[in-house]
């Protein structure tokens, strides 16, 4: 049963991933990427990595892709101009691709990564991995976690300090003054001699 679900999800994943780069419309491409994320989250669930699956859906689908879709919809990207020069860049791109392929073959075929497999201890605690991750983050590495939080706070303070300034030339409304305005301040009656008649 699990194998069947796995193959279903994998097939959808491969299809979605392929469509991301082949579809012409960028909005559709982004939506296919969302589909790819959902199916890979499903695969992770099958592996009992429920925390990663939830994080993937929440962070990537919920935040990153929505932001991405906004950008794609706001910018009117001309897909034809992006596709131009495919033939020109193909040799360089192809070379990089071949290099990466060779590296992967070298790494995967060497015995370097198989060597230490017996050293990995298998006495994993019998808790789900959300609990395990929580223990690592909030107990084992609590101190480091807290410092990291302070670093994020500093980043926020720094960003606001560097960008927030009261610009004199910027115009703004002061409702309390607008309400208090009197007729005398706004209208001035001028006596004019009417000529003609």
């Amino acid at each position, binding site marked *: 049963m699990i194998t069947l679900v796995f193959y279903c999800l994998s097939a959808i994943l491969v299809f979605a991933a392929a469509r991301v780069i082949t579809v012409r419309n960028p909005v559709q491409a982004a939506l296919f990427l969302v589909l790819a994320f959902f199916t890979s989250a499903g695969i992770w669930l099958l592996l009992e990595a429920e925390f990663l699956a939830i994080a993937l859906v929440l962070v990537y689908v919920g935040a990153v892709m929505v932001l991405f879709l906004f950008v794609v919809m706001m910018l009117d990207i001309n897909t034809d101009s992006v596709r131009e020069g495919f033939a020109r860049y193909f040799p360089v791109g192809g070379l990089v691709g071949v290099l990466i392929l060779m590296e992967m073959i070298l790494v995967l075929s060497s015995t370097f990564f198989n060597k230490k497999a017996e050293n990995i201890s298998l006495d994993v605690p019998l808790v789900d991995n959300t609990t395990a991750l929580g223990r690592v983050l909030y107990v084992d590495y609590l*101190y480091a976690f807290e410092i990291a939080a302070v670093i994020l706070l500093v980043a926020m303070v720094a960003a606001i300090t560097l960008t927030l300034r009261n610009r004199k030339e910027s115009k703004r409304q002061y409702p309390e003054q607008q309400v208090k305005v009197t007729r005398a301040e706004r209208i001035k009656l001028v006596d004019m001699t009417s000529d003609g008649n």
Partner: protein
Amino acid sequence: MNIPMSDLYVLLPEIFVLTMACIILIVAVYIPKQLMELNYHLAQVTVIGAAILTLTNLTESSSIVMNNMFIHDPMSILLKAFIYLITFTVFLYSRQYLRARDLYKGEYFVLSLTALLGMQIMVSAAHFLSLYLGLELLSLSLYAMVAMWRDSKQASEAAMKYFVLGALASGMLLYGMSMFYGITGTLELQKISEVIATGKIENTLLAFSLVFIMVGVAFKLGAVPFHMWVPDVYQGAPTAMTLFISAAPKLAAFAMLMRLLVDGLQGLHTDWQGMLMIMAILSMGLGNIVAIAQTNIKRMLAYSTISHIGFLLLGVLTATKEGYSASMFYTIVYALMSMGSFGMILLLSRAGFEAENIDDFKGLNERSPWYAFIMMILMLSMAGVPPMLGFWAKWSVLNQVVASGFVWLAVVAVLFSVIGAFFYLRIIRLMYVDKPEDLTKIVVAADMRIAISINGLGILALGLFPQILFQLCMNVF
């Protein structure tokens, strides 16, 4: 595997500083403009409070808490005590300068305090993670502080350079750390030294990883050939920020060097000795020679910093306990002198005027004999003229270098110091011999006048009785 409450007790100074920084952050938003002084007072209370918390928890032995991430030992206490002292004085010196430039805001104090927190964490780091995170906390705060003066183009440029090069250095350091993790299987400095001591690991692998760590540390210290950012940042940053960067973070950087090389990688000292030697000679040489050609005093002091860093490395490279304490003595003395010198630059600056050229010190004796005298003490001390404190710092380091059998290295160091004495003495000549060009009255607040006088006279007095400070440094190792 829970963390006992007693661990948090050791951590009190850090917790206090963080809490106060958050309080100032909130207070600064809500208080009216007339009460801006409150930020300053809160920041000073924070520093004093942290000092009290640290000094009431003295220890003779070292204990490691928070799941082996935080070390509480005599060295960390002494360094923290001086970091508090320096931060306190830096706030005091910067007050007038910042107020004149509309930088006297809550953010300055918040970022300074987070930088202080970063330094505390670095000084007490017993783990690669806490060391790195402390360093990042310090660096991030400093980048923002340098960039804070938005009206100055120079400051933005300096911040950009500082940020890019600093990020590169952090990357290098992290890369080295990750390799050590791969080799030894642990991030705890103590365990790493245990693994290395077993001698089962190939030395080439360790030395290769060590190179990355050294590059990262050298960048942060500003040792040649990783010094390029120092002159630009020192010159471009608002002087109050230069003052901050030049003093206390040097103590933290020294602590980082000690934690990494001595606590963690003592077993590799034959490898790092050579690297430190090259950097020490290059730093002393380049720093002292290039400083002669400078006309901007902030830039000149930046090159002088580079040369002092070279001297500091000399003590560490002896790889003996006496050498480390001599180096620590040197670092503390340097931080005190640097604080005084940049304090003098701040003192001569006023709204709309930066006293950053050497010529601005012309005829200072006629304008104010007392400040000229203080500056003379500071410059003589930097040059290493007896009986100033700077002389004893140089003497104790050279003593250890000779004791470890590197007589030629000591000779080289003395030669470069003599070259370096030239540009310090030039300032003294300008102050006492030349006629002043700028006759504006020097207006200084009473607290700053007292502080800078204590700073200058302290260097003279401690120079007459160097044993006091030296003994403190000897006792921690």
